[in-house]
């Protein structure tokens, strides 16, 4: 067989593969989503995807939006920014979605942003970092609170207790790094002095040396630990083992029952900021968010058999803000939907009460976080005043 034929075969194989990409379906209103359902960020993408599917079905069962049914197109980027951008292009060019709710991580969100900006399609991101909405981009919004807010919330609580000089001990993982940066940045404005900084790797199993340094530093009045996963639990245990009696603050990254279990009795007295979703049953009955978070928790747990996570809550908020914007716009026109998303006022969600504006595409303030204290192996709400 000649070379020509050989390569012709190769070319034909390529063409067949390309033509297989063709895939179309019809629906009234198409909403797109690119999430990290598998891969290292699947703890974000998986609850987000389930949440979107549950609520699209629920809205459709109630007759859809403006009399039209919704169709959700979800792609899995497996945590890769490169895949995310490909799927974003696909949502815009092939699926012709009118709006997008998704982007599990900051990296994937940042990689997709330009596609939606250029296509003039509203994009509600579910990722944390502040750079998504600062500077404000016309078509990009986000629902999760930022790390900066968690720092500010902790600092506000410190001030109330008359504490001004702190020690920071942070993890070197993505979460710990990002929050540490924000805390250091907002500290001077909040009147807080960071006297000493220590850090630990995500897989470290003993933080006694770092904490000893902190203990020996004169003038430290409290310790703040931005971190995610097991690290903060180990910090908490070592902290008590060293007999340090300073107030210890953890971050919203460990706001789960698992943290209390891991840290054991050492967790007693630890304070941390958290969204209302995780303490649905602890909220006072007058709280505006209480019915919303209770309802979402119940629905999610019955449909999936799993406990709620904050991340699914972000997807719920993003989707509901979009649905309400479409109802107000009485249209499925991307540009009108965008304008209405920006006009979102007083939306009560799992993450807080959202008031968007042309200069604020997240719309949350510090009331989105509650300060919790661990007492008797359970959360208690520290009153805000």
């Amino acid at each position, binding site marked *: *067989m*000649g*070379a*020509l*034929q*050989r*390569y*012709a*075969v*190769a*070319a034909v*194989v*390529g063409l067949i*593969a*390309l033509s*297989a*990409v063709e*895939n179309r379906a019809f629906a009234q209103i198409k909403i797109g989503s690119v999430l990290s359902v*598998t891969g290292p960020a699947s703890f974000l993408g998986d609850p987000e995807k389930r949440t979107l599917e549950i609520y699209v079905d629920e809205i459709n069962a109630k007759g859809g939006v403006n009399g039209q049914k919704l169709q959700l197109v*979800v*792609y*899995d980027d497996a*945590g*890769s*920014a*490169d*895949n995310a*951008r*490909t799927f974003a*292009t*696909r949502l*815009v*060019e*092939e699926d012709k979605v009118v709006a997008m709710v998704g982007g599990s*991580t*900051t*990296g*994937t969100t*940042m*990689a997709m942003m*330009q596609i939606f900006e250029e296509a003039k399609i509203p994009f509600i991101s579910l990722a944390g*970092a502040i*750079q998504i909405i600062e500077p404000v981009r016309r078509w990009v919004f986000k629902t999760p609170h930022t790390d900066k807010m968690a720092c500010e919330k902790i600092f506000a609580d410190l001030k109330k207790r008359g504490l001004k000089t702190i020690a920071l001990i942070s993890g*070197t*993982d*993505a979460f710990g*790094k*990002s929050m540490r*940066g924000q805390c250091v940045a907002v500290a001077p404005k909040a009147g807080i002095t960071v006297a000493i900084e220590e850090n630990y790797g995500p897989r470290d199993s003993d933080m006694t040396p770092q904490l000893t340094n902190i203990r020996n530093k004169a003038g430290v009045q409290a310790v703040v630990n931005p971190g995610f996963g097991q690290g903060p639990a180990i910090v908490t245990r070592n902290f008590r083992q060293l007999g340090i009696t300073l107030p210890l603050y953890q971050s919203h990254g460990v706001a789960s029952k698992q943290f209390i279990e891991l840290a054991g009795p050492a967790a007693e007295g630890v304070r941390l900021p958290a969204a209302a979703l995780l303490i649905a049953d602890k909220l006072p009955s007058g709280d505006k968010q209480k019915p919303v978070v209770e309802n979402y928790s119940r629905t999610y747990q019955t449909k999936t058999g799993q406990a709620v996570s904050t991340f699914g809550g972000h997807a719920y908020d993003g989707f509901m803000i979009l649905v309400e914007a479409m109802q107000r716009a009485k249209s499925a026109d991307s540009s009108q939907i965008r304008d209405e998303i920006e006009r979102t006022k007083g939306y009560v969600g799992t993450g807080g009460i959202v008031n968007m504006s042309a200069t604020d595409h997240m719309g949350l303030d510090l009331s989105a976080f509650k300060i919790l204290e661990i007492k008797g192996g359970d959360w208690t709400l520290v009153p805000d005043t």
Partner: protein
Amino acid sequence: MVSLVQTRLMPAIVIAALIVVLPAFFPSAYYYRIGVLVFIFALAVVGLNLLMGFAGQVSLGHAGFLGIGAYSVAIGPVHFGVPSWLCLFGGAALSGVVAFIVGRPILKLKGHYLAVATLGLGLLLAIVLTNEARWTGGPDGMSVPRLVLFGWSARGATTWYWIAGATFIVAFVLALNLMDSPTGRALRAIHDSEIAARVLGIDVARKKVAIFVISAMYASVAGSFLALFNGYVTPDAAGFLRSIELVAMVVLGGMGSIVGSLVGAVVLVVLPQALTVFHDYEQVLLGLIVMVFMIFLRRGIVPSLAAAFAGRRK
């Protein structure tokens, strides 16, 4: 003369013709994007295939070089104000130097030590990219300024289709020529029998280092293109899974077949896109299809099919 053109440059001409003709069937910019990704990955895979198929060495950290290329065009313009095109060459040179430093001592040894060394190198690079947040933006990644050449800025999938397509053809012809050069013949001799090659007077270690450096530079250029095309780069560009993906493309297309590199890239870029119709089962199906390919086309798609056709002809 005619036969020379037919045997050596024919595939390049056929592929070039395909690159030119295919856009006529593209309904949207999404297809251009897929095309660009195929060319970019094929570029890296051609380089890796030179190493795996001809020098008989495996690199399990090739995405590390992709990462060097990608972050060169991100860090250079952002932190130092160096133009992107210069950073692209700088990144390739840096990758070559790193490959030389790593390859020089290791390739003197027999066996697959290079695989272990590159595995470590790739992991180290990914850690550095994640931790040096001041320079790289950390795990969240960083924006990449557009490629500007003579005041003209390259943007959009259509433009990049032609840039990446043309670059791929050039790299493809270079690889074909390299294989027909004395170095290429020496490499094939090494691949068949290292001892015999040495007896014939071939400096085995030196040839292997040379091909490793070249393959690192191919990957680096691919990485730079990927970053410039996406406008954003995250450390997963240099991750271990990316390295495995590149090796899979080489093996699937056919080790030692330059055309196979393109086919491997086409299959592994296009297939995941086509399989999204199956929603939750896409990963399973992808694995299944790749397994079937490897069971029935054991030497890779191109060499196995070529052998089958040649056999039938007789």
